[in-house]
């Protein structure tokens, strides 16, 4: 759905555009493919919503800033939090520590919230963590079929596919098909456990440590750990059964 209008622009340019006013930008004629959708929306009585989402967000931001309801620096702070503080690199450090420190691994599998907090990761959407461990015979997968629940302190915001219909609908009924789509082929003797985050528990998958990574430091190991492996849709290269 992203078209040329949606491509990232510098934050400063985005704000200066917003400050300069967006009256011209929200007018329908520039909107190309979306104009038709807008016409349909207007027929249905949704005229309040301009058609192009990027422009709508920009217009809304200018209005709420002008009204004094929103401090643009708070928006910058949210973006900066997810771009530089909270994300899958946090989870990767948890995983690498579990691979190198057996006592930590044990604590992580018994009381994940407390063990993860030892590394300084805690807070919203990480209040009740459970870590599920992949083994040669068990493969874990995490989903939120109803919504988009995800362990923010260790993984950040969920990827688009995690929040989208294809994954949410299919992973509970055909987990092996989904894994295949991600390039993971599992043999029949491996059990697949799917965790549907319906309540307040948030899950992190502890992937198998890749073979041949014995001499690496904790930091080097963390660099091998991917977001997808911690959701359970990837196995790390070298691990048994990897596609």
């Amino acid at each position, binding site marked *: 759905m992203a078209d040329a209008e*949606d*491509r990232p622009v510098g934050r400063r340019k985005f704000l200066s555009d917003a400050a300069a*006013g*967006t*009256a011209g930008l*929200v007018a329908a004629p520039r909107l190309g493919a979306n104009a038709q959708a807008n016409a349909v929306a207007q027929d249905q009585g949704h*005229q309040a*919503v301009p058609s192009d*989402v*990027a422009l*709508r*967000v*920009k*217009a*809304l931001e*200018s*209005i709420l800033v*002008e*009204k004094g*309801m*929103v*401090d643009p620096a*708070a*928006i910058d*702070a*949210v*973006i900066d*939090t*997810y771009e530089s*503080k909270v994300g*899958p690199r946090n989870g990767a450090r948890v995983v690498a520590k579990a691979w190198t420190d057996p006592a930590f691994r044990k604590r992580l599998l018994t009381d994940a919230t407390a063990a993860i907090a030892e590394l300084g990761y*805690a*807070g*919203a959407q990480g*209040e009740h963590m459970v870590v599920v461990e992949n083994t040669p015979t068990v493969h874990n997968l995490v*989903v939120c*079929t*109803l*919504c988009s629940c995800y362990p923010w302190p260790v993984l950040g*915001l969920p*990827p*688009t596919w995690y929040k989208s*219909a*294809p*994954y949410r*609908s299919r992973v*509970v*009924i055909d987990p*092996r098909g989904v894994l295949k789509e991600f390039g993971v082929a599992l043999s029949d003797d491996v059990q*697949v456990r*799917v*965790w*549907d985050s*319906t*309540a*307040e*528990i948030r899950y992190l998958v502890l992937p198998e440590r890749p073979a041949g990574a014995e001499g690496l430091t904790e930091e080097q190991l963390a660099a091998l750990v*991917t*977001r997808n492996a911690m959701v359970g*849709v990837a196995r790390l290269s070298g691990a048994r059964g990897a596609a």
Partner: protein
Amino acid sequence: MNGIHDMGGMHGMGPIDVHEDERPFHAEWEGRAWGLIRAAGPFGPERRRNFRYEHEILPPAQYLQMQYYERFIRLLIERLMAAKLLTEAELQSGHADPASPRYTPRVTPASIAEQFGRRRSLRREDVKVRAGFKTGQRVRARNIHPVGHTRLPRYMRGHVGTVLTDHGVFGFQDTDADGYALPDKPQHVYTVEFTARELWGNTAHPRDTVHAELWEDYLERP
């Protein structure tokens, strides 16, 4: 409610975009939108509906077509309009009505950092509630169809599973038919394991399992 959001087990939703990189936002507007949603969050009607229910009642065709952050923005706009904090004319012009009241931001860069660090647990250490089920016990997910917000997915209803974990007492999140909170009813939440075959029949893999956390009210003795 039996809405489009409750999609576990549906077919025909298409391929998964498996090549997405690990960046949190893939367009400038996504980050601005998410930040705006957090920053404007405290403004809106006094009496709030469950925010997930607000998503769930979107017309299905729109729910499926909208991008994730687009849905949040649409609902933020609706909420601000309902509270008379925003008008259609303002959205069309891209500017605040000069005559509209001026406010003070309720969210600041400092409070963003504080928000991220804050535990907003629904666990209720303050009440003692007896657990109706024990670890290892067989339970059936009730065949119920609440019209408000519920966390019992359709694909589990009527099926029998095993209690794996008792997570303790949590506030019940189901709402009334209009999406407003029900009277407080804290209760135990359990992780229940279902075999894939119990949920999907004999074509499912014999070893595979599906787990969910279910509130006590969702469960009965089989």
